[in-house]
């Protein structure tokens, strides 16, 4: 069951403080990287919610992100909505799509679930790729950033935008953490462990799975809106299954099922990407090798590793105390 351990709370506090101070100190390039990390962090929080806690390994989260980004851009450019209502619309529509996908895939488990989500993701990708409404292959540009000048904030400034992006990550984290501590979140973890028993206790399993998927899809769409606002350009590549695959990689590298770990993973992934690609154009190969090593060694990712070391220490202390008592 999901809990806020002292280690997790400390890590989150450090991450918040660190990223905000970095946002004040960093130059333009650093701020761009910060916004990129924030986008990925929201996506992997969304994915960890269903994959890490619910065991629903999805390969359509890139598509949910992309649908969010596209709906936002079209709503703002063509439907005349301002940025905030356009974001709400994007999140709601993407969430509805995720609910439908979750409901349809609820009967599938294991590799079939992975394949089924992959199929739906690719379906969205193909549709966007060839649809004139969405600009096809060329993508769409001109997604606006929210206008907060009324409260004295100019989001076209990259420093302000980076802070805004960090706040969105915090919001996404709070939504995910709240969900995991709700009845639905408790059921979700239970479903991962024993679906049959929960059904025998009276849970409507498909609805629980679809609802969890919908919340996850809403967060993925939020990441999509942030991506669209950041680069002010959306392309079908956002929906590609490799985006989902990379998100899964980040979740694993950070620590599956910890919610905090994937955020750490997102930072490492983006920083590594920029560092390695400055040296060699073959950074994907390096990431691939790291991924294979992590999975084959059965490691639980960076944060998972720290947590298990921490727990060991705790267990040893308890054991020592017990010995001392005896």
């Amino acid at each position, binding site marked *: 069951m999901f809990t806020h351990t002292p280690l997790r709370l400390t890590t989150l506090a450090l991450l918040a403080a660190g990223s905000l101070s970095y946002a004040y100190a960093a130059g333009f390039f650093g701020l761009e990287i910060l916004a990129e990390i924030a986008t990925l962090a929201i996506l992997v929080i969304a994915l960890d919610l269903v994959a890490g806690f619910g065991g629903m390994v999805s390969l359509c989260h890139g598509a949910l992100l992309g649908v969010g980004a596209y709906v936002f851009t079209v709503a703002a450019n063509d439907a005349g909505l301002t940025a905030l209502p356009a974001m709400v619309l994007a999140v709601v529509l993407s969430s509805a799509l995720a609910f439908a996908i979750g409901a349809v895939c609820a009967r599938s488990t294991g590799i079939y679930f992975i394949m089924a989500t992959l199929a739906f993701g690719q379906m969205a990708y193909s549709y966007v790729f060839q649809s004139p409404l969405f600009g096809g292959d060329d993508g769409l540009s001109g997604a606006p950033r929210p206008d907060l000048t009324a409260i004295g904030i100019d989001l076209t400034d990259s420093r302000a935008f980076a802070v805004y992006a960090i706040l969105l990550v915090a919001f996404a984290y709070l939504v995910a953490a*709240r969900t995991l501590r*709700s009845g639905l979140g408790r*059921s979700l973890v239970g479903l991962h462990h024993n679906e*049959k*028993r*929960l059904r*025998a*206790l*009276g849970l409507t399993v498909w609805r629980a799975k679809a609802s969890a998927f919908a919340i996850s899809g809403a967060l993925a769409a939020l990441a999509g809106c942030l991506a669209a606002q950041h680069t002010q350009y959306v392309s079908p590549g956002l929906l590609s299954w490799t985006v989902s695959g990379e998100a899964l990689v980040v979740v694993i590298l950070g620590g599956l099922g910890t919610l905090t770990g994937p955020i750490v993973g997102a930072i490492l992934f983006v920083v590594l990407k920029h560092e390695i690609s400055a040296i060699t154009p073959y950074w994907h190969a390096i990431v691939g090798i790291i991924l294979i090593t992590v999975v084959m060694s059965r490691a639980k990712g960076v944060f998972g590793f720290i947590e298990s070391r921490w727990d060991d220490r705790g267990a040893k202390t308890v054991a020592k105390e017990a010995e001392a008592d005896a």
Partner: protein
Amino acid sequence: MLETRDLSKSFGPIQVTKGVSLKLQQGERRVILGPNGAGKTTLFNQLVGELRPDSGTIHLDGADVTSLGVADRARRGLSRSYQKNTLFDGLTIRENLGLATAVALGKGQGLWSDPLHAPEVRETVKEVAAQVDLAPYLEARVDAVSYGIRRQLEVGIALAARPKVILMDEPTSGVGPEMSKGFHRLLKALPRDLTILIIEHDMDLAFDVADTITVLNYGEVVFDGLPDAAKGSQLLKDIYLGAWEDA
């Protein structure tokens, strides 16, 4: 409270349930006996909806539930435990009972408050823990406790649903005789208005808790009546004890 009429089920050429008719009054404790392969667990699976019968009907508390799914029947007050432990591994015993209670109370889809901290859930967890003697182990993880404790939790999860009718599939299978006796003491202390249907292998223990006895053989009810009559029944001795000694 729970009634079946002419329930039948085949797997291919093999008929596993043959025209089974049962009638349980509220508060009745009925034990199902029968050799291995008599179709006891298959009958349970049909009662809770995990298997669809080929023909016949199932009534729960006066309503026909034959066409309802597992979750719907559970919400109407039917609960079961499994012969093979079906727990939430990796969680603590408190979390296991809390999750079961929360879901049974219809809090399993809630989006806001934490049901594990809801007063009625905590209260039920406490009561059930007392009923199945798990109070000292609440904070232990399921994979860290002994098999016997896990067996008690298996029944505890079914009880946490606060059912009207509970089906227990060999609740003491695999535990020692001392623990079995202890479990039957717990069983007798359960509220008298709870209707209980138990599959039990141990005849002596069965007669200890049973108000009524049903004997299944090859999917058919071959005896249905009071324990005393069952004890004297030559039929039961032939079928059941014969198979028992073989096994």
